[in-house]
């Protein structure tokens, strides 16, 4: 008896929430989605604080009574922008304002801080990683606080005369939790810094794909007729080209910048979203609330984006969750095939490194590959749970 009354009361609270929020709370009750969100949260924190987690520059040190923090001097504009965006995002999360306003504020914070930091912050062009270790062994410092992983991703430990390819935890004096690669750089440190690329690619590429998909799919679904015909042919064309092949062509011909890669992955993966949005718009277009919105003479913009889109967003979010996973995989695949970023380590590029070396060193493959796997798995878990949550058929039968 008490159970049913409780059910009714939870139902009532559920009904007071928006559809979007209801789905979200329902997703969060599943342990699989919690694990997924947990891993993503850890990854975000690692990515934001990467320079403080893995760096050869000491966090804080004292030289002849003078305190200094070399790590702050070596921060890049990108680091500063990411930190600013993270803090802004954290603050916005607890503010009670409309989601779109939040998004606009966040984007403007990113833009402004990126602009300011690129003009004001100029890290030293030449970084000498060895100097701290040499000074320390010459006892020039009073005390030094290093980062948890005291090696930068491009610190090849030349002062040790390292030949690289060291097993994890093989050396007693220096701890390399995940071993070192061929040139002697610490694998864990490279992985920590590469998490930024994975997250960035995932979010930005999916964002671009969603924007294009919603735009084209919305037009197709709402207007149908000729627009639908042309749009569907476009979708068909893009779906019939193997995505990976199109990506390869794009990257091979356009060069290998991170931003180009984000845009390219975005514009090659929109057809799926367009299909979903089209189906939703076709369905919702005939519903009474849309018909009455049209009858009220609301502007098209308002009908499309304030009335139809929020009601059809749930399946798109499911697709987006899987989309982030496949964007991360796409970047890893491109990097693995030797078409990825040149100067910065990414997880896929580290896998490629593992293949390129003459001997098989399991730690060079297993750790970055494992990181890709966990991240992709997390997004897939979230997507899967969300799909079950929005599927009225599954819900009806489990209750």
């Amino acid at each position, binding site marked *: 008896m008490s159970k049913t009354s409780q059910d009714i009361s939870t139902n009532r609270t559920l009904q007071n929430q928006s559809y979007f929020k209801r789905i979200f709370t329902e997703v969060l009750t599943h342990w699989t989605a919690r694990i997924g969100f947990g891993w993503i949260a850890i990854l975000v924190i690692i990515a934001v604080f990467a320079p403080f987690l893995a760096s050869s520059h000491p966090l804080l040190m004292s030289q002849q009574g003078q305190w200094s923090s070399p790590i702050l001097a070596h921060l890049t504009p990108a680091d500063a922008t990411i930190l600013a965006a993270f803090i802004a995002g954290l603050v916005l999360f607890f503010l009670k304002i409309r989601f779109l306003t939040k998004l606009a504020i966040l984007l403007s914070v990113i833009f402004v801080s990126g602009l300011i930091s690129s003009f004001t912050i100029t890290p030293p062009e030449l970084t000498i990683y060895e100097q701290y270790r040499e000074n320390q062994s010459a006892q020039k410092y009073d005390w030094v606080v290093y980062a948890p992983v005291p090696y930068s991703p491009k610190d090849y430990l030349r002062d040790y005369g390292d030949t690289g390819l060291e097993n994890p935890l093989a050396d007693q004096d220096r701890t390399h939790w995940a071993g070192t690669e061929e040139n002697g750089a610490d694998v864990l440190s490279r992985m920590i810094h590469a998490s930024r690329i994975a997250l960035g690619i995932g979010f930005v590429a999916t964002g671009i794909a969603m924007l294009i998909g919603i735009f084209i799919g919305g037009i197709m679904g709402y207007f149908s007729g000729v627009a639908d015909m042309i749009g569907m042919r476009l979708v068909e064309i893009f779906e019939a*080209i*193997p995505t990976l092949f199109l990506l*390869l*062509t794009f990257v*091979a011909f356009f060069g290998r910048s991170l931003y180009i890669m984000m845009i390219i992955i975005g514009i090659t993966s929109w057809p799926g979203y367009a299909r979903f949005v089209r189906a939703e718009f076709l369905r919702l277009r005939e519903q009474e609330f849309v018909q009455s919105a049209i009858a009220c003479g609301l502007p098209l913009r308002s009908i499309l984006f304030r009335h139809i889109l929020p009601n059809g967003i749930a399946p798109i979010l499911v697709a987006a969750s899987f989309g982030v996973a496949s964007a991360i995989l796409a970047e890893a695949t491109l990097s693995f*095939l030797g078409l990825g970023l040149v100067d910065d380590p990414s997880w896929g590029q580290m*896998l490629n490194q593992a293949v390129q070396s003459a001997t*098989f060193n399991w730690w060079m*493959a297993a750790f970055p*590959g494992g990181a890709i796997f966990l991240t992709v798995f997390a997004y897939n878990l979230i997507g899967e749970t969300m799909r079950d949550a929005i599927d009225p058929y599954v819900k009806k039968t489990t209750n």
Partner: protein
Amino acid sequence: MQAYILRRLMLMIPTLLGITIVVFAVMASSPGGISAQALIEGQNLEPQAKKALEDYYNRRYGLDQPAPIQYLRWINNISPIGFTLDKNHQIDGFSFFKGSDLGTSFRYGRPVLDIILERVPITLLLNIITIPIIYAIAISIGVRAATQRGRSFDIGSSVIMLGFWSIPTMLAGVLLIGFFASDQYWHWFPTSGLSTREALDMPFLPHWSSAFDIVILFVAMVAGTLISLYISQVYSAKIRMIFMALLGAGLGIAMGNALPGEHSIVVTLMLAILVAGIFAAIAYTDYQAFRSLSMALIGTIVGLIIAPLLMQGDYVRGFLFDRLWHLALPVICLSYGGFAFLTKLTRTAVLENLRADYARTARAKGVADELILWRHVFRNSLLPLITVSATLLPSLLAGSVIVESIFSIEGMGKLAIEAVKARDRELVLSITFVSGLLTLVSYLIADLCYAIADPRVSYE
């Protein structure tokens, strides 16, 4: 029906045009684009040689023409109906029977058609072996998950399948090669290619020098299969698990000893426990078909491992066995990713049909559960699986790009990477064209199969 097929075939033409336009536009609009300069860039040549080579490329492939003209020329070349050209690449007539020509590759200097005809069968071989494996495993797990809905098998299998789906193919490939093909660990499989050089001179089937060896091999194989099959069918879970765990532990210790270098007891023990655990888990499950099949397979493999220890004469591996031996790891890499998707699909389809009215009627009539499941429900659940088989092919084609480059198999995927890296206009366009065509044809075939499987669907 014919009219429908014809219409679909005609509709392919604009789509294929669109596909090639997209890819050509990407190539043409890139910095450097498709020009003779970009082709010979990086080659250390003297200025005169450079000029000569540039002129040669321009003359031969018309690279100095504007991009739209280049594309129209390519289209004209590949379409069977079109303008005929004279020696100076000028239009001199119109023909309905001029035949299509995919052009000559920049990089290989050979007709593109020859190269593609060489590579396509290899990629198709990989995919044709993979698809039945994916279907067999996905159906056996998906049907079981549907009948066990909400229980631990259902939840466990769906999470594990999702996990499989999330493993990047490169990681699986690199680890499989590293552990099972490199001589640092177990050198069981070849690292690359599709056959060893000597295998090309071997007879097709394996040959043994003495008949006695064949008998031993046969007896060991059959004995291994029958014993484990018998145990899986007759004995209780506890005895099954003990038997399989012991077998697994033995295999694990053998694996530990097979490692090169000094033998570490810890590693051997861990291997023994790991293999024993996996085998015991297989023996534990009460999904009888799955258990019997895997245990029989394990028994056969153990028999095959033991038999050569007793054989005296030498044997020739044979072409077929060599090919299978080379295909094992690539096929594993290609197939595991498809399970998750298909399993989920099978599960939903079977669930939906299990709840359908006709299934309830059959149950009420007193038809046995097994019969309802396989005779009625399963047949109706096959429809979505057929439709999906079409979308499987493009993703497998993409997957074979990675697998082929990891295992250095000279298929379409590897060709695609080479073509794109070499900025080979003719090859890139033709590969796009061929893979697009394959994709579209597989969509069409799936639609036709759908009509055959479901009499309610007709395309008249």
